């Protein structure tokens, strides 16, 4: 290479400047994004008296974890979180299992109406939620499911099936047909091919979907307030909202509860984000 030292220095410096601006800009955005979270975090460790005396943006007088204990126990966030899990986990299992079955059939079998079924799944995901609100409410009433966990589990499973099937079917199409033929010759029946060959190969896609769907269902608020009435059944999103009325003077307890509610989602993302990113870029080139 015949680059003169002077030129070389100049080149690196321009890159550094561009790089520097990028970092500054991104840091600013990140900070801006984190300000409310930080505010909530600080607030949750203060007392209401302290806030009313000095205002939100003041240096706290003292920090304590009482708000968290209060939120978990008296404000029932612990119970709400448990409800969230009782609703989210079966929904997740149901939608992943059912959609992977449907996806396998759609990806692998040639039959009349294959495309029609596939498009129905895709089209279903495009229906706006507002249209379905009333019919679903009445359906759960008729089925006697209104105000039960079952109603929410069922509606979440059904609602996400379209999207999950769409993603999984497209992923399964990328698995070479020869592998399945080899399994067939080796002695596999159809279900075993699905269970022992295709499903293990779909894990990256399943993990990405599970992450996405977990946050989706876990953070759902609207279906929870539409289909549930009893406080004892409420997931944490709906539960937190009721706190506002109950503790309208105690912001620190409410923010403490909100922070507690985000912990599970945070965990899922931290542990599954590797798959999530992999999943987002799936099929974008090898």
């Amino acid at each position, binding site marked *: 290479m015949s680059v003169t030292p002077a030129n070389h220095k100049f080149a690196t410096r321009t890159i550094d400047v561009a790089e520097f601006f990028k970092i500054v800009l991104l840091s600013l955005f990140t900070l801006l994004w984190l300000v409310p979270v930080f505010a909530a975090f600080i607030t949750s460790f203060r007392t209401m008296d302290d806030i009313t005396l000095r205002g939100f943006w003041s240096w706290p007088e003292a920090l304590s974890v009482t708000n968290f204990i209060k939120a978990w126990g008296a404000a029932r966030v612990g119970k709400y979180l448990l409800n969230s899990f009782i609703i989210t986990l079966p929904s997740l299992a149901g939608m992943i299992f059912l959609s992977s079955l449907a996806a396998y059939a759609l990806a692998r079998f040639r039959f009349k109406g294959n495309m029609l079924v596939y498009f129905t799944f895709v089209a279903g995901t495009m229906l706006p939620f507002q249209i379905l609100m009333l019919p679903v409410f009445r359906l759960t009433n008729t089925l006697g499911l209104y105000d039960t966990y079952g109603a929410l589990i069922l509606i979440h499973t059904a609602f996400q099936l379209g999207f999950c099937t769409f993603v999984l079917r497209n992923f399964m199409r990328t698995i070479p047909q020869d592998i399945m033929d080899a399994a067939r010759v080796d002695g596999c*029946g159809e279900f075993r091919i699905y269970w022992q060959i295709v499903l293990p190969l779909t894990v990256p896609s399943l993990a990405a979907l599970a992450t996405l769907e977990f946050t989706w269902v876990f953070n759902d608020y609207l279906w929870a307030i539409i289909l549930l009435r009893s406080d004892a059944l409420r997931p944490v999103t709906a539960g937190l909202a009721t706190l506002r009325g109950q503790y309208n003077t105690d912001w620190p307890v409410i923010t403490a509860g909100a922070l507690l509610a985000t912990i599970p989602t945070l965990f899922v993302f931290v542990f599954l984000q590797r798959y999530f990113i992999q999943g987002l870029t799936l099929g974008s080139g090898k």
Partner: protein
Amino acid sequence: MASVTYEHVWKRFGDFIALNDLNIKIEDKEFLVLVGPSGCGKTTALRCLAGLEEISDGAILIGDQKVNDVAPKDRDIAMVFQSYALYPHMSVFDNMAFGLKLRKVPKEEIRKRVEEAAQVLGIEHLLKRKPRELSGGQRQRVAVGRAIVREPKVFLFDEPLSNLDAKLRVQTRAEISKLHQRLQTTFIYVTHDQTEAMTMATRIAVMNKGVLQQLDTPQTLYDRPANLFVAGFIGSPSMNFFSGSLRKDGANLFVDTGDFAIKVPENRVATYMPLAGKEIVFGIRPEDIHNPTFAPPGIHAEPVEAKVDVTELMGNEIFLYLVTGKHSCVARVDPRTRFMIGDKVQVVFNMDNFHIFDLSTDRENPLAVR
């Protein structure tokens, strides 16, 4: 161990006919190679036998049992795929053991068989690895290993060497032949490479457009091709063809290509006399065209004038690309030949080995009818 029989097998994909009345009887312990250009139906024939495709008509028998409606897993066959089709999420050991586990073979027996097969193939040290950690050649061995541990009645190979580099392909070819001798089982092998077919097969089935063209031993196929297609497909470089007619002149027969006329030797006149006056294609293999200086003695040599178009030195021989009027041909001549590009030269055709194909009767070679 079993024979395999295709009886009037048809396979249609919509309007496309992939197999057109296929009849083959493959003996027990035979190494049959199905060969032909892409799209000729050879892979379809194999997949139908494996049960991966349903046949539209006819019957396929393994041993004496008709297997039309038998599921692939109950046909007792093993198949090696072109892409190897290893299970990416399983170790080499599990890949090979999978079929046995499904058949509920005892654990100890599975371990024994897998280790034996691995030893035969020289992959003992790879058993714990995943397929993605193997080279192409190693994957190919695992694919073969997965087939042999099953100890099936019939082995199917679908172009197993086409993803290997040239050197490895030659080496693996010999190994598969050795494997056949060792296992003493029926092998059915699909390839588009006539060299593979010639070197490994006990018999070759040449296919084109879903139709079986000829089924015979490699040497017979080479010496007495049934028609133009087989003649052109088997042999490399392929046979030279000259279109023309057969001219009768008293008791003699002449092949007249328009560019040159050559005399049919007396001992072959009777065979070709019925074709006199007809449109024919004259075929001669590159090794039967000689430089007159180095032509072996005692052959029926007929001189032909030609212009040298290209020469390719191979070391032990020279490929001469010749032009004779409107025809062109390839000759494999002695390496001492000093012909230059553009030279007008005289070569000799060895008329002990030539073929005449009758254009009016589906291009059949009267010689093959015997």
